[in-house]
């Protein structure tokens, strides 16, 4: 089924044979649609009716359908995404195709807005999460941005964030970790962010080397503070089972000279030494022996020393465990089962040189009993709540980078206040991925504030971003169906898809009906877009606006938080 635009959804809704909308959800919650919903809610940015239909069309039992769906999603390049490409092209972004040297010339050295590349990367990220058919790929892209987090709106990094997203993270999101790490280590953004651009002989800078081992590869569980070289035992792969400060210092020395063409006064005074691209500047490389994870860096010299150090880190079992625990946490549960982490780590380790290493690991995790049985719980973080709200209301959006008081300025400001703005986490450990870090009153209150606004935002042509009215009319074509009860149930089905606590449903119906009976039809079409004042009869007081508010309230339900 082609589901690359919101348009097909409306066709599906209108079709009388459509499973989701021909019945009340209580009647249609068969085990297979539950399974489809669970998989899609967990592994994508939100299950839409056409996504559920498509999943259910892929085979004759859950296992077959899941396998076929994974085949499709993990072969991401084979999945036609022309609908998204058209939207990206139509949005008219200016910086997303610029090379690193163009970004540098225009946005660092030139007069172009320094923050535009970051702003457009954020806009495109929202567009992709909402419309791309490559949903697992987009989920993993977000994962890797969190894993190799940079402060994307930093004065120095914002101009080059386009390169980081396009050339560093995205090509490898379902590919090979060693290749991604290579790209990260050479990326202008990371070289700036963790200061390796300043790491040079005689005064090395350990920042990158430390985070490389602690956050990006081995993990702090493998950190032996205070241990000297040779004190940490070797594993059966002849690599030390962990690292110490001594390893950090020597890995930092391996990376001396990995820098950017920044026009530094010690570099030749020619334009090609000031174009922002990666360079191994041999003059800054510190010679001499290095000892990393219990092994001398013998043989290779210069730039190859760091390459060998990265090989050690990527083939290490601790890296496999650390990375697989994080991926399992993203896809399965805040505290993923250790057995799943271990089995995924084995797949990771066995395939550390395979081109589809990450895809293999993701398949392993998404096919596991732990995932299929749906025992874990995850909640949507603010970005995921926002994207699910867009997807499930058939939103027609074209996010624009802006700092002003247009709808996108308003929306992105409120989104930022949730504490989950794209590329805005300040420290290199990336956004947290456990519920306890996203359930503070601040995050929840600001997220509700955002959702309350999303339903009201309209574009220059006074079209609402969320198609609440159109979807309601299409889904409930007979005005007699549009009672408070009918409206609330329609949107509960569309947004949540599972039964919600009955007290919550009644509260929503009470808000929608006001002084009318729950089964009395409400007029949602008079006085569009907002409705009319009616002080004597609140059930007719700004009813279209009240419907939008009710939809926003559904997006604030605990059931909508469940991923």
């Amino acid at each position: 089924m082609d589901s690359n635009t919101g348009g097909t959804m409306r066709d599906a809704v209108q079709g009388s044979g459509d499973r989701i909308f021909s019945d009340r959800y209580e009647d249609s919650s068969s085990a297979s649609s539950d399974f489809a919903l669970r998989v899609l809610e967990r592994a994508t940015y939100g299950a839409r009716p056409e996504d559920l239909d498509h999943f259910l069309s892929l085979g004759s039992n859950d296992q077959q359908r899941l396998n076929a769906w994974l085949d499709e999603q993990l072969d991401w390049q084979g999945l036609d995404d022309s609908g998204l490409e058209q939207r990206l092209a139509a949005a008219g972004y200016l910086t997303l195709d610029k090379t690193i040297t163009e970004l540098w010339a225009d946005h660092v050295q030139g007069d172009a807005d320094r923050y535009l590349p970051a702003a457009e990367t954020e806009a495109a990220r929202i567009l992709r999460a909402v419309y791309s058919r490559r949903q697992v790929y987009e989920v993993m892209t977000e994962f890797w941005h969190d894993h190799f987090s940079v402060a994307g709106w930093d004065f120095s990094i914002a101009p080059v964030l386009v390169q980081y997203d396009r050339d560093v993270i995205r090509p490898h999101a379902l590919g090979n970790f060693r290749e991604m790490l290579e790209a990260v280590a050479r990326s202008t953004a990371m070289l700036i962010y963790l200061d390796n651009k300043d790491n040079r002989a005689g005064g090395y800078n350990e920042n990158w080397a430390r985070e490389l081992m602690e956050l990006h590869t081995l993990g702090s569980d493998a950190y032996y503070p205070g241990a000297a070289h040779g004190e940490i035992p070797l594993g059966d792969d002849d690599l030390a089972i962990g690292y110490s400060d001594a390893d950090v210092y020597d890995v930092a020395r391996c990376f001396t000279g990995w820098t950017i063409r920044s026009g530094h006064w010690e570099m030749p005074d020619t334009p090609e030494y000031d174009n922002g691209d990666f360079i191994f500047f041999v003059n800054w490389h510190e010679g001499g022996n290095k000892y990393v994870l219990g092994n001398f860096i013998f043989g290779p010299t210069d730039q190859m020393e760091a390459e060998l150090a990265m090989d050690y880190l990527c083939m290490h079992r601790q890296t496999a465990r650390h990375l697989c625990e994080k991926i399992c946490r993203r896809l399965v549960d805040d505290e993923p089962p250790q057995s799943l982490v271990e089995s995924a780590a084995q797949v990771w380790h066995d395939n550390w040189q395979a081109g589809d290493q990450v895809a293999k690991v993701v398949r392993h995790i998404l096919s596991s009993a732990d995932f299929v049985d749906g025992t874990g719980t995850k909640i949507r973080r603010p970005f995921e709540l926002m994207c699910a709200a867009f997807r499930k209301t058939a939103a027609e959006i074209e996010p624009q980078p802006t700092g002003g008081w247009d709808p996108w300025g308003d929306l992105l400001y409120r989104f930022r206040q949730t504490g989950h703005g794209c590329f805005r986490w300040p420290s290199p450990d990336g956004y947290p991925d456990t519920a306890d870090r996203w359930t503070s009153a601040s995050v929840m209150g600001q997220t509700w504030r955002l959702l309350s606004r999303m339903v009201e935002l309209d574009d220059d042509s006074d079209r609402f971003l969320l198609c609440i009215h159109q979807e309601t009319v299409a889904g409930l074509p007979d005005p007699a169906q549009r009672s408070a009860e009918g409206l609330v149930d329609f949107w509960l089905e569309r947004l949540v898809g599972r039964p919600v606590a009955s007290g919550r449903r009644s509260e929503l119906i009470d808000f929608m009906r006001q002084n009318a009976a729950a089964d009395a039809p409400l007029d949602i079409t008079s006085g569009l877009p907002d409705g009319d004042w009616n002080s004597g009869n609140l059930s007719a007081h700004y009813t279209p606006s009240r419907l939008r508010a009710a939809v926003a309230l559904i997006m604030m339900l605990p059931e909508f938080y469940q991923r």
Partner: protein
Amino acid sequence: MRRRAFLQGCCAAALAGAVPLTTFWRPAAAAGRTSNDVIVYVFLRGGIDGLHLVVPYAGAERSQYELLRDNLAIPESNLRQINSQWALHPRAGGGPGDGVGSSPKWLHRLWDEGRVAIVQGSGMPQHLSRSHFDAQAWIDLGTPGDKSTPDGWLTRYLAVADGLPSADIAPVFGFADTRPMSLMGSSAALTVASPESFRVDGFHWSWNETNPDLAGHQAAHRRLDALWSGGGASPLLQAGRDTADALEQMRGMDFDGYLPEGGASYPGGTLGDQFRSLAQLIKQDMGIVAATVDYGGWDTHAGQGVPQPGNANHYDYYGIRVEELSRALDAFYTDLSASSQGNLMDRVNVVVLSEFGRKVRPNDASGTDHGHGNVMLALGGRVNGGMHGSFPGLDAGSLFEGQDLATTTDYRQVLAEALVSRMGLAPAQLEAVFPEFGSYSPLGVFSSS
């Protein structure tokens, strides 16, 4: 007004049995509530270079400092001298255009008034990590060496302290986007980055605010509480209910219209805004006993900067941050100490710390890498101003691992003293707040009277 979740501070099962609910009511305090102290825990995220803030000014340490600090050493002529041996970074007491001889402002002024304590050589003596994340987690959790502790030290304090007042909104406010680890496991803490925008206010105007002229009309946000009711007591549901409660109560407060007292002038920016809101909350006398404030940007691996006081055009990254911090602390102190309700700083205790100090030697990028020992600050009307603890020394024999300042005072001693001297904790209860922290030996940073 419901006080449901806010009466007790902790959901850690291990502690639940030790916390009789009745102890949260203290009749004397519940009547006026003004008798309770407040602790403000300011975390300078990223590892502030304490040696760049409190700088050796004379003697052997000065010579050793100049030798090791090399091009990052601040010349004596660019420092604000505070006693025979020590000086402050100039931006702690003046703007970039103010020479060091100009009359002291901000933190320097408060030091001169005896309201600031500096604790030398503070940090984690027995457990070493040069990782930001481990060190921050250990400090916030109060359990150096163990970051699997399920709750933060402030969470445990709230759970075991006797006689805490009842709180209208929350007994502890975390000023941050996401909950700081010092408040991990707390169902009572309210984490907000900015209180004035903490309202669900985006609906169409017709349903955004309750219209009292329309009989039976109720704004949409009023439904949130019921929408999170029922369904058990999962952490998510509890958090949603607390959020709905807090939203309703904060909606009634006028943050934009708040006027600081005593001529206090908060610096623009998040830090100043947060301190201003905190002062307002404390003046509202609504049972707040603790607050956390985070101020980041101290990870100065490159371009840390050497100040040039008197040169208004000189860019000094570190100095800008020192100035913002100093101005915010000064405004907060002034606002509360000159309050029409009396000198509220007599019951407000500010502690400032960071996860570790930085290397004594600069790196090749005019920055400093992660180190070990550091300074802590305390500020308040009941703080014994002056130098505390002992400076660990810059000579080769004293440096930790030959490169960092050593640690001579466990940071928990300072926090423990604040809790015991000011916050009503019995010494015997310290073990519950800081497990395995050893013997309590207060430095005299806080007055107990």
